[in-house]
């Protein structure tokens, strides 16, 4: 029955070749921790992706309660933390996950750097990886404001001031991010939009490219 269903879909969509490309390739011995314990350093990339998935999922659940306006943002975060079933766990996951993604990403980057895996022909994948780094830092910056508590507000006020001090284009960045001379209602909606629409779109495209290139070029051989 299952086989028949699969064949029926396969006949129409040709999923077998896609499946083969995605899943059916040999993983070299030197990245396998089962062969050599020190190969666990090759897990950092996969773990970064795993934590990013928990960020996406916990973020989607937070969005079920979170309200991005200055009257209700704080109240909704308080409600999530104190009242919602497992709300403090989901919020904790999203909060601590932000740090964990960055830690894992730095470890992954250092692994790639010190094993020289960015060398030809994998330069482009390194570039995409550095861009992902930038996007993830952007997530951290825009996410920090959303609970609209004192810590969030004043940390972002400092960040916005720093962005505004950029010569020539500083005022334009200020307008784009903050929406006016002072941090306020517009800032919160902008940061929310950037955090949940712009950056995830960018991240998914870049991750897609990152993984596509890994499959195309395969993992760098042993040193």
């Amino acid at each position, binding site marked *: 029955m299952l086989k028949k269903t699969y064949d029926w879909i396969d006949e129409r969509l040709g999923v077998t070749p896609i499946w*083969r490309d995605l*899943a*059916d*390739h040999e*993983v*070299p*011995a*030197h990245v*396998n*921790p089962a*062969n050599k314990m020190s190969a*666990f350093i090759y*897990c950092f990339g*996969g*773990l970064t992706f*795993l*934590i990013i998935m*928990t960020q996406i999922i916990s973020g989607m659940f937070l969005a079920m309660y979170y309200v991005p306006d*200055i009257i209700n943002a*704080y109240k909704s975060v308080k409600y999530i*933390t104190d009242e919602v079933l*497992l709300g403090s*766990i989901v*919020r*904790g*996951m999203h909060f*601590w996950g932000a*740090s964990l993604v*960055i830690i894992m990403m730095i470890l992954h980057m250092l692994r790639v*750097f*010190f*094993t*020289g*895996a*960015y*060398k*030809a022909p*994998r*330069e482009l994948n*390194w570039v995409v990886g*550095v861009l992902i780094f*930038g996007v993830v830092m952007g997530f*951290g910056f825009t996410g*920090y404001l959303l*609970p609209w*508590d*004192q*810590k*969030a*507000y*004043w*940390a972002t006020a*400092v*960040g916005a001031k*720093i962005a505004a*001090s*950029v*010569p020539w284009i500083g005022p334009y960045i200020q307008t784009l991010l903050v929406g006016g001379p002072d941090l306020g209602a517009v800032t919160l909606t902008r940061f929310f939009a950037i955090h949940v629409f712009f950056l995830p779109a960018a991240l998914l495209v870049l991750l897609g490219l990152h993984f596509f290139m890994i499959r195309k070029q395969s993992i*760098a051989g042993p*040193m």
Partner: protein
Amino acid sequence: MADHSGKERIPGVPRYRRPKDMPTSGTEPFFPNFLLKEWIVGSVILVAFILWIIFNPVELTAVADPADTSFIPVPDWYFLFLYQLLKYIPGEIIWLGTVVIPGIAFTLLLLAPWLDRRKARHPMKRPIATWGMVIAMVFMGWLTYEARMQHEEALAKNPPKPAAPQVKDTAIVDPNDPGAKIFAQNCAACHGAELKGQVGPSLLGVGNKYTAEQIQGIIKSGKPPIMPANVVQGDDAVKVAQWLAKQKQK
């Protein structure tokens, strides 16, 4: 793929179904063999992550108040090094710290594959790249550490206002009630001997929020994610609930 005298791996056939005498080079299929091992590592990390979350609840400070400029701002830890860098740069050339230095660092990182073009990949065989990165990481770590220390000093000099000042000056109502004794034996480990909260939240003023019946219900069924059900049972639960319901704030 090398020819193993007609025993070449059939695509999609996992390792455990391969013939025993088939030679291997230590490689294995991504799916399901390798992915399974990755998932084992992943689930260990996830369990550790969840435990960390449970024991480190996220705080929520007071609601944002643009008028209160006494709050000492601090960015999240991963921006501390940039923040600290600016402290060493005088005001009129602040752009050096906000744009030029981070810009150069980011560009160097982005262009690493073109700056380090020789074939050698072992870190010891390309000292400039290796030491460059080590020094950059040490410098960033030092900046982060300094920022952290200076922030803690500033906090010690100018302690932040408590988020909920009413908790501080509220006294426990009726401390000689029999319920207080049951509370001290069963509940104080989590909610604090002074009701000020520890693992569990503060219960000072809980009477404003709940009636005795509601508190009894919470004791009976617990409160996710941490508070277990039926810590206190029967008559004792009624007494504790009635005493807690008296904890009202004006």
